[in-house]
């Protein structure tokens, strides 16, 4: 190993200690899923095994189990539900009584969940109206097992009622996502990816990945540091003979030995010159390496960040992410290239000095080194406090940035509600907290350095006292004492700089943790390990039993939908009915929590994300234009598009003419939020953008709702060109814009309630009819208002 690496490990093993591990016997869904269905008891804790054996028999074999982790009063406790061939049995808590229901017609298991807890109910409708026989509760951790229990229950019950045994075979499907599993495959590759292991506390060591490409430069820097510091150790050594062989003999009446004195002088000058040159080269090399490591860190983190799902960005605040990629990478690279090397040199230098001191005068050396353990202990004591302190300062600092990142984009709202003062106060408050944190840390920190200095002075005093005593005894010379005093100054300077590394390392460690928080985050929309090639798609989409949960809220439930190639589907429903979520699932911005989305029969999770998205064009309600020219914005999805292609797309999107009216035509710059262009114009640019990639699947998410009716007509013309021959899914608030749709899909609270064309749905007088009527009324009222 690289010497720097060794010092690194040594230091880190001391600073961090070993990660504390906790062994909780946990029973996760992953375990449940991984066990083959034939041995349903394998995954049960031992304590249940005997119970289960007692309650099942040869003719009444166990089919499925659900371990309950809550009781009916919602306290944490272990219960169990067993499904055997003839009965359902349950027990609440470890010492509750078993209840048993024989399988018969009319029984049904129902489940629903709310706020993180699932409820399973056994209903009996054999005598007319359903009667609830029992209720069980569990946290969603057991949801997969619960779903499987219900599935098995339904099958078995059907078998019992119809008098034929359940077929033994079974297509093994993942209980969560319903994807078929290969024979012998125990875990669903799609579902087993939830990151549960915390990143190791040895975070800093992982930075080696970034330092590795520069290891030779770093080694050179290290050797140069070593050499230049070695050169600085020569002068004190030379003072010894200068004293004893030149100055003291002269004082005692001997003639001045000029040649000897000159030689020593030349030595002093040479050492200084060597130290200067070496230090110069070293600083240059390390500064270069430092900048490069910083660049790598930043770009790697950013690249990883870009790959993360929308879910991640939804949960993070912009200011915090900016701070992480900006400041913290900087701190890390300074640590890697400067602080760490300095520290390694310090350690070696102290050892070297100690060796020199001992070789000159062991007793005096011993006394000189006396304060070392005390300082070591102090470093140890302060480091804990500083580490947590710095981590918290970083968090508070991110809060300060967050206030800025919140307020500046929302400045119109702030001003409209005249809340400038409040926002200023909020900023002040965040700064106050930052200040308070720093004040607290500085209390510890400020006492630290002066104490080291004090110990240095005391050490110096001890050396004086002991040295004078030794000279008086004749055991030592004035030269030796002078050399010692010169060394000890350097020695303690080293200790002081070593103590500085405490803070540098703590800061770097907390920065590293925060960077690796990003790097370790596995996208919730992961790239498949072995992506299937996606050939030219036709645009056929099928959604099977799709469910999606946002946090603990179930947004989409049991949704089935088949969309033919070239078909235009209009998604209709109240806001919050799950339309946009459905579109996000089809775009794979999120992954379904249950069921599957397939394109031409291929699960979209099994193809590379970029391959898939190439086939999807998206036009949003609020078109986002990046800073750049209009041409660049149109070509965003296909940067190598020719000018002809760009113009053709703009023409088709009815954007060509207004673009030509701009002073610089296609080369006009558009700003962050597309300032200078109207809503309709921006929308047409984004339509051109979608047209240019020529996608098979087109998604229009309220593409026309942000503009007035006149502009809408313009956009509609553009859209008509866009839709041609593509599978289109359009969300529109104004139902009139969906007249061209082949089918309208009406959604309500995450479910499809009606499907059909406009006329058929109107004839049904259901959800759609009501929506349509309501809108007509509003339009009529508006028209009346205008007329009056």
């Amino acid at each position: 190993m690289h010497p720097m690496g060794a010092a690194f490990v040594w230091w880190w093993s001391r600073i961090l200690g070993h990660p504390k591990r906790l062994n909780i016997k946990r029973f996760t869904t992953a375990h449940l899923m991984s066990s083959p269905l034939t041995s349903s008891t394998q995954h049960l804790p031992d304590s249940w095994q005997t119970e289960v054996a007692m309650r099942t028999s040869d003719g009444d074999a166990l089919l499925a189990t659900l371990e309950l982790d809550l009781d009916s009063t919602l306290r944490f406790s272990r219960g169990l539900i067993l499904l055997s061939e003839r009965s359902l049995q349950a027990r609440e808590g470890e010492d509750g009584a078993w209840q048993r229901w024989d399988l018969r017609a009319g029984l049904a298991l129902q489940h629903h969940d709310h706020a993180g807890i699932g409820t399973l109910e056994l209903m009996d409708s054999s005598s007319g109206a359903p009667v609830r026989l029992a209720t069980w509760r569990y946290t969603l951790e057991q949801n997969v097992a619960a779903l499987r229990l219900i599935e098995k229950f339904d099958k078995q019950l059907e078998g019992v009622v119809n008098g034929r045994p359940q077929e033994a075979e079974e297509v093994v499907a993942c209980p969560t996502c319903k994807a078929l599993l290969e024979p012998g495959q125990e875990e669903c590759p799609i579902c087993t990816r939830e990151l549960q292991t915390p990143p190791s506390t040895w975070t800093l060591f992982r930075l080696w990945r970034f330092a590795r490409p520069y290891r030779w430069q770093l080694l050179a820097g290290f050797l140069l540091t070593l050499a230049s510091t070695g050169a600085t150790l020569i002068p004190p050594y030379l003072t010894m003979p200068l004293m004893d062989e030149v100055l003291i003999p002269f004082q005692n009446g001997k003639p001045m030995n000029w040649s000897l004195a000159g030689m020593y002088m030349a030595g002093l000058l040479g050492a200084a010159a060597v130290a200067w040159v070496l230090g110069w080269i070293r600083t240059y090399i390390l500064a270069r390496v430092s900048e490069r490591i910083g660049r790598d860190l930043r770009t790697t983190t950013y690249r990883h960040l870009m790959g993360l799902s929308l879910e991640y960005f939804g949960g993070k605040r912009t200011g915090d992410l900016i701070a992480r990629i900006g400041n913290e990478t900087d701190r890390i690279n300074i640590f890697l290239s400067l602080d760490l090397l300095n520290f390694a040199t310090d350690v070696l230098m102290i050892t070297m000095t100690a060796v020199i001191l001992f070789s000159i005068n062991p007793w005096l050396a011993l006394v000189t080194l006396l304060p070392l353990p005390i300082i070591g202990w102090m470093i140890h004591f302060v480091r804990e406090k500083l580490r947590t302190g710095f981590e918290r300062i970083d968090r508070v600092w991110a809060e300060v940035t967050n206030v800025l990142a919140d307020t500046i984009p929302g400045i119109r709202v702030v001003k409209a509600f005249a809340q400038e003062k409040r926002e200023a106060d909020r900023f002040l408050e965040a700064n106050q907290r930052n200040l308070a944190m720093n004040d607290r840390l500085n209390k510890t920190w400020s006492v630290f350095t002066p104490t080291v200095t004090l110990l240095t002075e005391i050490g110096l005093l001890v050396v004086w006292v002991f040295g004078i005593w030794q000279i008086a005894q004749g055991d030592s010379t004035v030269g030796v004492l002078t050399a010692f005093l010169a060394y000890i100054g350097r020695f303690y300077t080293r200790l002081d700089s070593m103590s500085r590394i405490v803070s540098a390392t703590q800061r770097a460690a907390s920065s590293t943790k925060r960077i690796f928080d990003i790097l370790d985050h596995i996208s919730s929309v992961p790239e498949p390990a072995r992506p299937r090639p996606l050939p030219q798609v036709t645009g056929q989409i099928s959604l099977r039993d799709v469910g999606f949960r946002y946090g603990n809220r179930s947004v989409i439930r049991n949704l089935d939908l088949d969309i033919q190639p070239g078909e235009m589907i209009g998604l209709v429903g109240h806001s919050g009915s799950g339309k946009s979520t459905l579109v996000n699932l089809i775009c794979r911005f999120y992954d379904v929590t249950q069921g599957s989305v397939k394109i031409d029969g291929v699960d979209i999770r099994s193809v590379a994300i970029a391959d898939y998205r190439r086939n999807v064009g998206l036009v949003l309600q609020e078109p986002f234009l990046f800073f750049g020219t209009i041409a660049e914005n149109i070509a965003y999805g296909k940067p190598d598009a020719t000018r002809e292609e760009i113009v053709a797309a703009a023409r088709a999107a009815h954007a060509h003419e207004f673009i030509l009216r701009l002073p610089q035509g296609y080369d006009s710059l558009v700003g962050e939020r597309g300032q200078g262009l109207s809503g309709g114009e921006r929308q047409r640019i984004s339509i051109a953008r979608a047209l240019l990639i020529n996608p098979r699947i087109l998604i229009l998410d309220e593409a026309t709702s942000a503009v007035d009716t006149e502009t809408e007509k313009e956009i509609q013309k553009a859209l008509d060109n866009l839709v041609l021959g593509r599978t289109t899914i359009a969300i529109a608030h104004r139902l009139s814009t969906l007249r061209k749709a082949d089918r309208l899909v009406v959604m309500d609270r995450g479910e499809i309630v009606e499907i059909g064309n406009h006329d058929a749905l109107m004839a049904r007088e259901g959800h759609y009819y009501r929506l349509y009527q309501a809108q007509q009324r509003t339009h009529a009222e508006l028209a009346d208002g205008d007329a009056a």
Partner: protein
Amino acid sequence: MSTFSLTRNPAGRLVCTLADGTVHANTTPVRAFPLAAPDEGLALMSQEGHEIAWIARLSDLDAANRAMIEEELAGREFMPEIQRITDVSSFATPSTWSVQTSRGPTALVLKGEEDIRRLPDNGLLIADRHGVLYLIPDRKAMDRHSRKILERFL
């Protein structure tokens, strides 16, 4: 004086009969401010998700209706209060915490620090991996050990 009456049907669902005689099977009581003011502002929602009655204050109800609502809420609301944090697997997330709660001991997985939400009066609301919410009413009132662990995540 309530303008509705509640009963429970054999299927275990709440049935609400309004003053005008309309009957809604399967009604759900929902708190409007579950954290800020749990006993003020409750709505009864129909199966279709529409509001059928508004209760300004739980104490305004007569005993029978109130008991009915409280029973239903008790079965739906699950927000264990963390009394003590026994141990955490690591100070970096995701981290497994073993905790003592008002509903017994358990373990929760914290996915990220952003899942800890600050409430007024030093309160914290912690969402675990499965969306279960854990409440810490006042972190300053916890024991030293728990506070020390918490500090590392705040």
